[in-house]
């Protein structure tokens, strides 16, 4: 047996991104099983992972994890290249742009909750834009906007709080031996 001429050596970055993407994909598969009153409304639990990656490793990694989650998650759920896939993709891209902007808010006053809310609203905006322009080219779609906004508000808050809590725990376990970083306000 000959050795493959192409050998891909995953870097530490690749492994880390793959690990977080796997967690995000698992969450999106899990939440697909949760029944929702309105089609298209989802808690977006995978965004907790995006927020954690954003806070710890920066925007580039967050983009990787999110896009891998959208593609692989849709493959697992049989949604790949279906309308739902393009809706998640457009929402994900819009929320990544929002996160790229929101991460520059002064960290003293703004935490993951702000980022999560910004991302959630960007998500519905991106999604509705694509849906309006392409899938349902009718203004009737915009009557759903208040319901999507309410969902974004609640789930954006919940995911942001979850991410903030997890980041706090990660920080406290990382700083266990020294407990020098006691900068909680």
């Amino acid at each position: 047996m000959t050795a493959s001429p192409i050998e891909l050596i995953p870097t530490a970055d690749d492994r880390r991104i793959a690990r977080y993407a796997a967690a995000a994909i698992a969450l999106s598969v899990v939440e697909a099983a949760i029944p929702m009153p309105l089609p298209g409304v989802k808690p977006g639990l995978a965004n907790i992972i995006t927020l954690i990656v954003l806070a710890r490793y920066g925007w580039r990694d967050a983009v990787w994890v999110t896009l891998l989650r959208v593609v692989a998650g849709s493959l697992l759920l049989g949604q790949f290249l279906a309308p739902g896939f393009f809706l998640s993709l457009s929402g994900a891209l819009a929320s990544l742009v929002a996160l790229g902007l929101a991460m520059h808010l002064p960290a003293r006053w703004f935490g993951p909750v702000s980022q999560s809310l910004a991302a959630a609203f960007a998500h519905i905006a991106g999604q509705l834009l694509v849906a309006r322009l392409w899938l349902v080219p009718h203004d009737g779609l915009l009557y759903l906007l208040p319901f999507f906004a309410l969902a974004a508000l609640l789930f954006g808050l919940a995911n942001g709080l979850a991410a903030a809590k997890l980041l706090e725990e990660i920080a406290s376990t990382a700083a266990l031996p020294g407990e020098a970083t006691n900068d909680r306000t």
Partner: protein
Amino acid sequence: MKPGDWGMFLLFAAGTAALAPVAFSGGVAEKAVVRRDGVVVAELPLTQKRRIEVAGALGTSVIEVQPGRARVAADPGPRQYCVRQGWLTRPNAIAICAPSHLSLSIAGRSADHDSLAY
């Protein structure tokens, strides 16, 4: 939650609350359209009270509009079908006064679809 997070939350909550009326204006009747021989003679927004007189084939008919509804209040036609139909409230509802060659219909925001299914 940091102070800015609260601010952000309140901002988005206010935005969401501002959108709420959109949810309950969906598909409501928006204007009354009066036609004679298929030609539009009057369009009345269903937001304020009005009473107009329209000249029909037999004489003068009276169209009455109140917020959210409209009716033919009087018509010289012999059988009074359009008058007895009463108030029209739903989009695409129509009252036809055939002897007078008049019709009164309610136009919603979209006249081209009766409903949408996803």
